[in-house]
């Protein structure tokens, strides 16, 4: 068996589609996997990644320059648009401070959905800050289970200090049509050319 005989390599068994992804971000327990599950053609899958991160704890005097390895877990799903195009949806892990050292997270990302919970909007700040600084377009989705709404969209927009052109949508993301409409709003936003200029 000669594995080095590259001259006789065949082609792929079937053509590989183009792949893009959307990132689904937000605080812990806010409904990221719920949205992935609502639109994915498969049950959400889970995978883990190791990140090597500098120790930057505020009380970390002795450990300057040291590296830590941390494990992050992601749930993700898939929408096969055609044999030529597949869209992946990745629920981002928490710990947004790690994302800046994780290039793979944003490779091939068309845009993002930041899911917000009106009872703890501050958990969305980390994601919003990341996408703004990275120049990744995003929309905000306010998850309202069973239609329960305690804040209006203008209130959410103000509390999150969003640029006026960033779309904000509300709904129960367990429903496929609602989660789909959030993603459609993101695509429309991209088509309008509102790429964040950073």
């Amino acid at each position, binding site marked *: 068996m000669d594995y080095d005989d590259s001259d006789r390599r065949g082609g792929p068994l079937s053509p590989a589609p183009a792949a*893009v992804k959307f990132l689904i971000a937000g605080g812990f327990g806010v409904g990221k996997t719920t949205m992935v599950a609502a639109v994915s053609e498969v049950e959400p899958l889970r995978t883990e990644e190791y990140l090597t991160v500098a120790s930057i704890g505020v009380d970390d005097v002795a450990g300057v320059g040291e590296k830590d390895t941390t494990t992050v877990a992601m749930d993700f799903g898939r929408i096969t648009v055609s044999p030529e195009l597949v869209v992946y949806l990745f629920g981002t892990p928490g710990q947004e401070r790690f994302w800046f050292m994780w290039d793979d997270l944003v490779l091939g990302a068309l845009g993002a959905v930041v899911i917000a919970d009106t009872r703890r909007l501050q958990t969305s700040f980390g994601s919003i800050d990341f996408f703004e600084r990275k120049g990744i377009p995003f929309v905000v989705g306010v998850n309202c289970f069973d239609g329960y709404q305690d804040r209006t969209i203008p209130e959410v927009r103000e509390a999150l200090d969003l640029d006026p052109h960033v779309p904000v949508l509300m709904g129960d993301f367990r429903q496929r049509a609602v989660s789909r409409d959030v993603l459609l709003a993101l695509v429309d936003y991209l088509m309008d050319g509102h790429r964040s200029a950073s």
Partner: protein
Amino acid sequence: MSSSHWADEPLDDDPEDSFVRPYTITHGRTVSAHGDLTLITIVVALALPEEQLGTRGLEPEHRFILEQCRRPVALAEIAAGLNLPVAVTKILISDLITLGRVAARPPVAVAVGKRPDIRLLQAVRDGLRRL
């Protein structure tokens, strides 16, 4: 090898072991020879003549990957199926690229601050509307 990979799978529960054990599968290698592999790099097996389809020298995980990517599949999906971290899966897939057993297609390049190709966006939109 476990093939269960659903979201309620408990995380590795032994922190002492969790970073070291997966790398025994790669014989201690922690860096992939093909550094450009990503979570959504699409991997597909190559069609080979019968005499080149052997599995000698391959780990069970390599054979699992070859089986899984008989149809195109994202690297992250392979990692989930193997129940191995992405970093380890990248090394195994890299081995198979070096051996000429699989091809890898990188994700669509998306430039920061620029609108993606409008036909691509339209295709994504059409796909979402069919959901």
